[in-house]
């Protein structure tokens, strides 16, 4: 089986989680004997897969990250996305005639046009994976141009893969996608890439971690309001806020006006190599997002054996029963669960070990198997 896959980034070139996803997925597919031609914008980084089975085909050129904040969506950006898609479609049409592709598969909106053109020029079945949509990234004010591209891709795709049932609901409700062609495939995590909480030393002060973009969607303010309530009950706690974003200044002054600033530490953007130990050293991980298509950070915390509290409006809340769940707006509910995790060691330990076992089962090989299952439904 040979697949034409269109993506936007691939390690070491990455601006978000998509690069890692594409890297792991293509390699897992290759291990299953599926050949993948991976089309992506030419970059200055030396993008290379490991071993056989995956071939990178650089086309056009794009210098922008797809998931940077809205301000960065300048005219240049859209022009460069468009240029890439045109170049990619041409390349795809050219190579497609010599190759026996059985499906064209693309990820998110930036690559949708190339896949649609491939579908019609080569007569290939098309698979769209949506890791998020414009609604998740921009909340109440979606960029209409991007939203339209997403809509077109969903209409033209023969199968739409998305990362959670929560997202499936969004695709049905906001884009009117026919339920029968949506397939849910959860993300995976490599537990071997993380340290586990039982292997690292924990200080006297307990740590409650927030890790994510400092934007409304991730509900960092609710995290601080909850911190205030927790501190009414428990004293030796540190609230660590990792990540950067538009709200940084606001959050710092909020922690001051709530009178909890001595207990809050802002550590900014975390490089990967520090992330693994920050998860492991934390006693509680909070992902209280307003809307989270999946929430890979919750899975990473699970892989670290750090108990997680996630919002109901997140895909990650579906993947294991061994987590605590709150409504994103329920500050007291969040605080209560943080306090419980801080107070009751047996609760922390039970959640940690059970969620870790579940995380171990969420492998890229499983993602690949499910993806092949989708290919088989529609392949030529």
């Amino acid at each position, binding site marked *: 089986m040979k697949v034409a896959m269109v993506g936007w980034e691939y390690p070491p070139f990455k601006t978000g989680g998509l690069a890692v996803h594409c890297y792991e997925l293509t390699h897992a597919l290759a291990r299953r004997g599926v050949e993948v031609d991976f089309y992506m914008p030419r970059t200055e980084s030396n993008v290379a897969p490991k071993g056989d089975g995956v071939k990178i085909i650089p086309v056009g050129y794009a210098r922008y990250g797809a998931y940077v904040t809205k301000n960065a969506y300048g005219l240049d950006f859209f022009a460069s996305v468009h240029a890439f898609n045109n170049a990619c479609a041409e390349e795809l049409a050219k190579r497609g005639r010599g190759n026996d592709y059985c499906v064209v598969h693309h990820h998110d909106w930036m690559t949708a046009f190339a896949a649609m053109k491939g579908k019609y020029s080569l007569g290939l079945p098309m698979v769209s994976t949506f890791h998020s949509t414009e609604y998740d990234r921009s909340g109440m004010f979606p960029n209409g141009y991007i939203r339209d591209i997403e809509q077109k891709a969903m209409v033209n795709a023969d199968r739409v893969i998305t990362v959670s049932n929560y997202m499936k609901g969004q695709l049905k409700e906001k884009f009117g996608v026919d339920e029968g062609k949506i397939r849910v495939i959860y993300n995976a995590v490599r537990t071997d890439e993380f340290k586990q909480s039982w292997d690292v030393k924990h200080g006297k002060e307990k740590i409650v971690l927030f890790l994510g973009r400092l934007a409304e969607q991730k509900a960092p303010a609710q995290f601080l309001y909850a911190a205030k309530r927790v501190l009414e*009950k428990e004293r030796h706690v540190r609230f660590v806020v990792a990540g950067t974003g538009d709200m940084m200044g606001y959050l710092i002054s909020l922690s001051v006006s709530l009178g909890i600033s001595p207990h809050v530490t802002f550590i900014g953007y975390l490089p990967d190599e520090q992330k693994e130990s920050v998860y492991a050293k934390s006693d509680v991980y909070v992902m209280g997002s307003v809307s989270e298509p999946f929430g890979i950070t919750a899975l990473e915390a699970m892989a670290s054996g750090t108990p997680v509290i996630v919002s109901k409006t997140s895909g990650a809340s579906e993947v294991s029963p061994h987590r605590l769940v709150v409504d994103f707006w329920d500050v007291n509910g969040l*605080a209560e669960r943080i306090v*419980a995790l801080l107070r009751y060691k047996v609760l922390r330990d039970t959640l940690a070990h059970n969620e870790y076992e579940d995380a171990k089962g969420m492998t890229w090989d499983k993602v690949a198997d499910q993806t092949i299952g989708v290919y088989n439904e529609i392949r030529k």
Partner: protein
Amino acid sequence: MTAVCFYFQVHQPVRLKRFSLFADSIPDSLYERYFDDATNKAIFGKVTDKCYLPANSLLLKLIGENEGRFRISYSLTGSFLEQAKRFRPEVIDSFHALAETGCVEFLNETYYHSLSSLFEDKTEFVEQVRMHSQELHSLFKASGKVFRNTEALFSNDMARLAEDLGFDGIVGEGHESVLGWRSPDYLYGVKGCARIKALLRNYKLSDDVSYRFSARWWPEWPLTAEKYAKWLAGAPGQCINLFMDYETFGEHQWEETGIFSFLAALPREVLKYQHLGFMTPTEVVQDNPVMGEIDVPNPISWADMERDVSAWLGNSMQRECFHALQGLELKVRETRDPEILHVWRLLQNSDHLYYLCTKSWADGDVHKYFSPFQSPYEGFINYMNILQDFRKEVEEA
């Protein structure tokens, strides 16, 4: 003659409130602070209308029609009786009417449906058993000589304790882990006991009614009274012990499944066989010798696939709650405060720990069905928060 011995378990837990650490105001009364009477009342009312009243009135009618030949038994927990008195007193009246027929036996158990038989110190267990006997005697003039521990918990030690308390019989689960190749349809002596006789549940025939009655995947569906009576007639032992939750009738198996019609036809079908007759547990024990001995060093129960204590004490969260609760005994007694003692005992309802079970296989579904909590973790947090608050109150009292 082979005795058909019916015993119905009648229990309602006293459910807990969602206890908030950040509530604006908390009631002074500990009962109101921890227990959710609105929910208790609503559920009690629903089960009363679907099960207790219709089933009682049907059984009363059947007892009348069969002139003493149809005999049954119940185990009514103290937490059930208390709720009945407060929420639906007519339920007590209808059990009273059943008691008056002389064909109904009431089994003894722990008043609070507790796991106190697993406490290190058995004082609490003995007190709860006495409380329960007194209550049964004062309500129904009951004087049964058979003991049924919470959730059919059973071990050599528990049987000896029941014997010391003056009981002639004790109920247990007729599971292969205890019986091996032997049939549950005989009376057994218990290792280390002098005279107490064990009545073991025939779980297959019991579950045919309580669990499989409406199961369309079951090749025997639909189960008729005629067919069931034939199965009973084919069992060669001294007694067939059919023990099940009373809520089977109308609540777990809805009226629409035909469960009441099945029950209504059953005495007639069973009594068509000359060698079958209905008896209550005390009558079975008094009429029959033991046919062998069982040895149960570790407690068994009638719950889950394992038939052990793991439904309540299987994970470390459950054990931590249990130990914390047990650890309060001395302090609770020292307060000599009846409300504190009562609340501590209500917190012993085994159901609270049942909700914290994390066993993820088929049994998990049953725990989930009964649990008012989203997850065992939520159940643990709520129970522990209540226990911590209660401990503070006990220490300050």
